[in-house]
């Protein structure tokens, strides 16, 4: 682990713990209101409900966590001369590639650590109960996949979603000059864009808005094709943001790489 990652560890740990606390709170809340039924929800279904349900606070805060992490990892380097000195030594493509790679590694590690801590937290408050019924874990997937595959799919969508938030932060890194801007603007973009979309693209329907897309996985009937919706939204969205970022970077590159 290099020095840069080491200095990042404290923030990473704090956010992972906050994430786990958020997920555990959701678990407590849902354990209390559970009134009986064919399947008592387990810690795995509580976790994914906390992550994907648009009614849960955690699903609103997670984008902010990702923005903070990506900003902390990249902006210090980006707004210092280390950026230019690195480019002069190793080339532009290598610098950008390294940044992307660092972001992907960090996000993957964050999700794994935060999910494991959340499951431990949920285990402490709800006991070691796992839902093996795939329809209970993800009603949107219709119970068509086994429990392991269902959980892997949900983890994958969580990761794709985080990559989308990271690309948005990376885009704002190109057009801002101060660190705080790389925190505030992406969050405003991610929270305001869906509201604008409701009015501008009313014909599309609410179910395709950021906060609603993944909710289709854990709420029955919100979407008929949650896998397609999620893949289209997060991969398509990320590719679009990467394309815009690439265009901005090319324009700036031609103008000159200055601080």
């Amino acid at each position, binding site marked *: 682990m290099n*020095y840069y990652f080491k200095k990042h560890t404290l923030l990473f740990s704090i956010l992972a713990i906050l994430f786990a606390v958020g997920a555990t709170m959701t678990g407590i809340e849902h354990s209390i209101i559970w009134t009986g039924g064919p399947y008592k929800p387990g810690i795995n279904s509580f976790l994914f409900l906390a992550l994907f349900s648009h009614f849960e606070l955690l699903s609103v805060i997670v984008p902010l966590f990702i923005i903070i992490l990506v900003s902390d990892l990249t902006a210090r380097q980006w707004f*210092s*001369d*280390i950026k230019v*000195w*690195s480019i*002069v*030594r190793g080339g532009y493509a290598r610098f950008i590639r390294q940044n992307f790679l660092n972001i992907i590694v960090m996000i993957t590690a964050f999700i794994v650590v935060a999910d494991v801590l959340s499951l431990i937290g949920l285990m402490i408050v709800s006991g070691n109960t796992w839902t093996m019924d795939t329809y209970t874990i993800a009603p949107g997937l219709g119970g068509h996949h086994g429990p392991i595959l269902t959980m892997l799919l949900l983890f994958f969508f969580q990761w794709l979603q985080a990559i989308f938030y990271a690309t948005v932060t990376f885009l704002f890194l190109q057009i801002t000059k101060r660190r705080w801007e790389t925190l505030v603007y992406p969050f405003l973009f991610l929270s305001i864009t869906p509201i604008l979309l409701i009015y501008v693209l009313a014909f599309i329907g609410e179910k395709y808005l950021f906060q609603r897309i993944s909710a289709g996985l854990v709420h029955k009937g919100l979407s008929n094709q949650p896998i397609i919706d999620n893949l289209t939204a997060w991969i398509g969205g990320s590719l679009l943001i990467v394309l815009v970022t690439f265009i901005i970077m090319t324009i700036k590159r031609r103008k*000159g790489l*200055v601080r």
Partner: protein
Amino acid sequence: MIATLDHVQKRFKGKRVLEDVALQIKEGEIVGIIGGNGSGKTTILRMLAGLMYADQGETTVHGKKINIGEFPGNIGLLIETPRFIERLTGMENLKMLARIQNKIDEQRIRETMKHFFLDPDLKDPVKTYSLGMNQRLGLVQAFMEEPKLLLLDEPTNALDEKSRARFEEVLLEARSKGASAVIVSHHQDEIARLCDRVYLIEEGTLKEVTKQ
């Protein structure tokens, strides 16, 4: 020639900064550029580093034309007041940079830091450094990999007499090993003392001046 600017022109927002600049830097030569604020001195350094491109004319470094997206490599660069990652120590910042080319080991970084009166074992982050320490760290960064071409913008800014003398010593030692340098400075005495040739940039053109 280690670097050339061949009838280079550059405009910024319609204003012509470089009119018709021609410059040739030979191996082992130190070239000085003086001129007023905004005269285009730093732009010349940026072009030689591959960070900026001419609207017309050609930039060649190490015998290779610099096209968009290409960098000359093997250069040491210090432009404006250096800004490091503030929460890392000086040594950590330098190690991060050294790892990119993997040309030097930690021992070489330590030696270069000591040359510029910096303690490699200092655990304080760069944000606690004085202006002079920061500038010296910037110089270490430029010199540590023994590049063939040094591009230095106001290298002695914020340095005390002792550090200035050390900078001159290190620069002359680099030259004795075959390195070339382009120095931009307001200190005309320093430029005259160190440089083989001195140019004045005025109204977008370079004029060679007689050393006093």
